[in-house]
């Protein structure tokens, strides 16, 4: 389990940041913020690589005494940062990767939500993020194909036009 998860906008401001325990929130905020130095450097280093060959997972950004900070960057330059307790040896690279993939999926869900405006901060526990059920916002509602699945648009027939959200 990660102790802190952050989603950072392309412009490097936080879209979502949550940590457990919550009492030393500020420390994690700083940790995530400083890790962007490494993210920036890694992104600029791989800038020349072909887009399709680009690895989204950035790996360990930097170790501190007590925590390990991992990074991930989407193709639209949205960054995910995850802080893991150093003592947690159960989390190997593969676990971290899969956690990032899940996070990416959740983020994609948020982006698919028509009531989310890209670039807005995602409020913890707010209507957009990681919520298990379809959310009623205003007169229309988002539909998910299955609980926990991604938001999807409803089509009248598999190939038919997009009729409603």
């Amino acid at each position, binding site marked *: 389990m990660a102790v802190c998860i952050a989603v950072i906008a392309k*412009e490097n401001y936080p879209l979502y940041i949550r940590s457990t325990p919550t009492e030393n929130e500020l420390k994690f905020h700083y940790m995530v913020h400083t890790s962007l130095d490494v993210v920036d*450097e890694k992104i600029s280093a791989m800038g020349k690589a072909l887009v399709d060959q680009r690895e989204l997972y950035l790996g360990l950004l930097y170790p501190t005494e007590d925590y390990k900070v991992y990074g991930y960057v989407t193709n639209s330059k949205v960054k995910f940062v995850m802080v893991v307790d150093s003592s947690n040896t159960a989390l190997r690279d593969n676990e971290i990767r899969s956690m990032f993939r899940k996070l990416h999926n959740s983020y994609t869900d948020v982006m698919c939500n028509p009531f989310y405006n890209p670039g807005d901060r995602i409020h913890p526990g707010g209507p957009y993020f990681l919520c298990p059920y379809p959310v009623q916002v205003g007169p229309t509602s988002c539909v998910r194909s299955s609980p926990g699945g991604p938001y999807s648009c409803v089509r009248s027939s598999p190939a038919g036009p997009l009729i409603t959200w």
Partner: protein
Amino acid sequence: MSPTQWDLPVELCCRPMAFVTLTGLDVVYNAVHRAVWDAFCANRRADRVPISFKVLPGDHEYPKCRPKRTSYEWYIPKGILKTGWMNKHLNLVPALVVVFYELDWDEPQWKEKQSECATRVEIVRQSLQGRNTKVAVVLIQKKTPLPPGEDVIASERAAALCNACELSGKSLFVLPHTDHLVGYIIRLENAFYEHAQTYYYTEIRRVKSHKEFLNKTTHQLLFVRHQFKIAFFSELKQDTQNALKNYRTAYNLVHELRAHETNILEIKTMAGFINYKICRLCFQHNTPLDAIAQFRKHIDLCKKKIGSAELSFEHAAWMSKQFQAFGDLFDEAIKLGLTAIQTQNPGFYYQQAAYYAQERKQLAKSLCNHEASIMYPNPDPLETQTGVLDFYGQRSWRQGILSFDLSDPEKEKVGVLAIQLKERNVAHSEIIITLLSNAVAQFKKYKCPRMKSHLMVQMGEEYYYAKDYTKALKLLDYVMCDYRSEGWWTLLTSILTTALKCSYLMAQLKDYITYSLELLGRASTLKDDQKSRIEKNLINVLMNESPDPEPDCDIFAVKTAQKLWADRISLAGSNIFTIGVQDFVPFVQCKAKFHAPSFHVDVPVEFDIYLKADCPHPIRFSKLCVSFNNQEYNQFCVIEEASKANEVLENPTQGKMCLVPGKTRKLLFKFVAKTEDVGKKIEITSVDLALGNETGRCVVLNWQGGGGDAASSQEALQAARSFKRRPKLPDNEVHWDSIIIQASTMIISRVPNISVHLRHEPPALTNEMYCLVVTVQSHEKTQIRDVKLTAGLKPGQDANLTQKTHVTLHGTELCDESYPALLTDIPVGDLHPGEQLEKMLYVRCGTVGSRMFLVYVSYLINITAEEKEIVCKCHKDETVTIETVFPFDVAVKFVSTKFEHLERVYADIPFLLMTDLLSASPWALTVVSSELQLAPSMTTVDQLESQVDNVVLQTGESASECFCLRCPSLGNVEGGVATGHYIISWKRTSAMENIPVIRTVITLPHVIVENIPLHVNADLPSFGRVRESLPVKYHLQNKTDFVQDVEISVEPSDAFMFSGLKQVQAISCGVYVDTKLRPRDGELYLWFL
């Protein structure tokens, strides 16, 4: 800073070098000796052998050697490593003692000198008793020695001297004092170095030999000690590989020691020392990864070895030191050429060191908070007899006691108390700040701007704790903008909170206000109760009162601050602070918006200022002024509390100066633009909002341009992206996000209320005086003055057109080259409402093609706008494109008198010139007259009067003329003979009488003239009657200068009969008539048929 308990000893950190002492040198009074000593020690570069030299007197007492232990059976060590040991072998016990002695081989008193030298050697040996230290003798000689083997006396005496001094031949050296001193010295020291290495080798062997006597139960400490010593001697021997190997073994042995609260400090101290040595050697061997791995292992092993809970700050201090020392080693290696990377650089170690220093401070704060009445114990338990500890890492009050049980708990208590009280005096913040600033320097180097900012925040906070508020504020202020620009509001709020405390404690008014403004703003993540408190304080400050202290401030600092604030009040008079908001996010937002991107000068310029407050309580502002690029308008756009009912205000209610949180307030301003500003841009350069009043304190928020602060550009972008539907608001309210700043507007001239008509008959004909009738009619309600007309070719077209277009107002005379293409500012007087005037323009276009003509009418009118009389200049323009065409085409041909087409004409023979004028004009043309101007080479046969006078040609009609001409013989002219000009005078049929006639001159083509020798002219009647004779006359003419023979034969046609006298002759015309033609003579022959 003086070295503290936690600093690593100097002898540990230095690079061990073989220690060699030089005796018998008088470096003070003897110049030769001085030179020798200088050659040894001055400018030692890296390529010289690593030896540390020291000059000592010959009778120097070296540390006594302890008697050799024969058995270790009953020996129990009291500690791991004695504090003096490293220093002893670095600086006190030499590997080699060199005896310098002045002695030449041909010394007359050889015997005496030899024995004196032997005595000196003996004295040295005495003081080194029991040690394996080598002794060598160097003879300082005045003469250059002969090559070895040649000087028989020398070898004999050398052998004798060795014998007397009990030296091996290898230990006797000769140093000739000549020009090549340094060269000799280098050779000498290389020899010394070999001796020293042998010495350290034997020392290693000696220590190793102890090992077999040791047993694992009682001599655990000795294992470490011996291993350390072997490694240290290896280092002295410059055998770093073996040194590293032995240090690694020693390191493992240290951790095998039984650890207990009583000896944990000693174990950690030694582990730290050995770790330092290992890391240092790894860096030296250019294996930095090994160094890092060793250090990580070291930290992981020691992290949890806290030891006594009462002294846990010691552990933090030690940890901090470990990181710092490693950072220093790392940094040093980088200076020697190692490359570090962003994620692995000394900065991280300094940072961690700082964290441990902070932890140390925290622990010290909780563990050392003794009452002031508790006195430092006397006698001082931390004092030892010698002033230093015997063994590294032991407690002074129980040195050498290995038992894990505390024999004297009381003594222990006093000792702990002493340490705790001492810790209280440590300047923790200073240590932390130094470490942080070290880290900052590193992160700056390795492209970590955010890490740098974070560390600077920590430095700022540490300065705050250390009560150095000025420095704290400086640092915090410096980094704030980084967090602001990246939109990390949580972090910004935290920094601002600290900054606010600092500014409160220093009673820095402007800073206090600035930070309050931002903490109340939308970028602040503070809770409402906090915001509410800050707003209350801000209002207090503005009312010239003291604010309440910030929470969690030091009580004493608050007391001082309260005094400072009180002083500020008594000084207060007119405290006006202007704060530019573009660099931060204040709690009032402002947007200015002109109603339109442009305004006509006769209507008032209108714009709105939107204000929105984000603070928790309503706030009243005292003044709002808007500044423009033309400062004359500034006076019209001011709202002040004191001012009475202001007509520029939209809804002059009571609460107009009051900003309700979350509500957008709109303030409407109007002013009449100056007529000089027509065509210019009016720009809002700044908006100033004053909070508080001038009797108390006044803060002026200054927005550059049309509003917007540090965060608004991003917000605007976000709002633009958003497709969220905004809930409907009452009519007079607007959504803040939907307001788009429009800070400038154009002033454009008043819309003209006149009509301009052009009447003309296109297309224009080349060179004609083309008439353009301009009708201007005023639809204005009042009289318009100073009506001026500008007309002609529109500027900006092809430059050639300007040359070939001429405009005049007077159609009665033809205009020439001197007339302009554009007539400017023709005054046409005033016009009453509804009045109309007409002006005729004549345009003469010299070339065909289309042209754009501009008619521009300007006038002045007095207008009343917003009860102000202004004179407006209005103008209206019309453009028209006019095509110019040729009025007619002229075709010319030459024909014979029989109307046969002629390619060429014959000299002296009449021919006809036919002109054909085809009208191309869509309008009827009147050919007033035509004229043929003949070239001198041409003569006319009959009159040349025009045959087309006053002919009117409709489109497509043509008028032809025919002239009979003759060309006298001229001989052969290349390219033909000029014919002359055909001049047509014409005008439009519709043109008025007084319009001048246009003369179009057409150059007639050249014609080729050919001379012929014989010209036959037949003179035939135009008709004959049946059965009547028809006289036929043939006129033959010889055109040459010679007599020509001519043969004439007549072949009658079947339709005719011959008659008359000549008939016979004619009949015999089967026979040729031979006649002679004289030159230039004609002969007439007549036949009747």
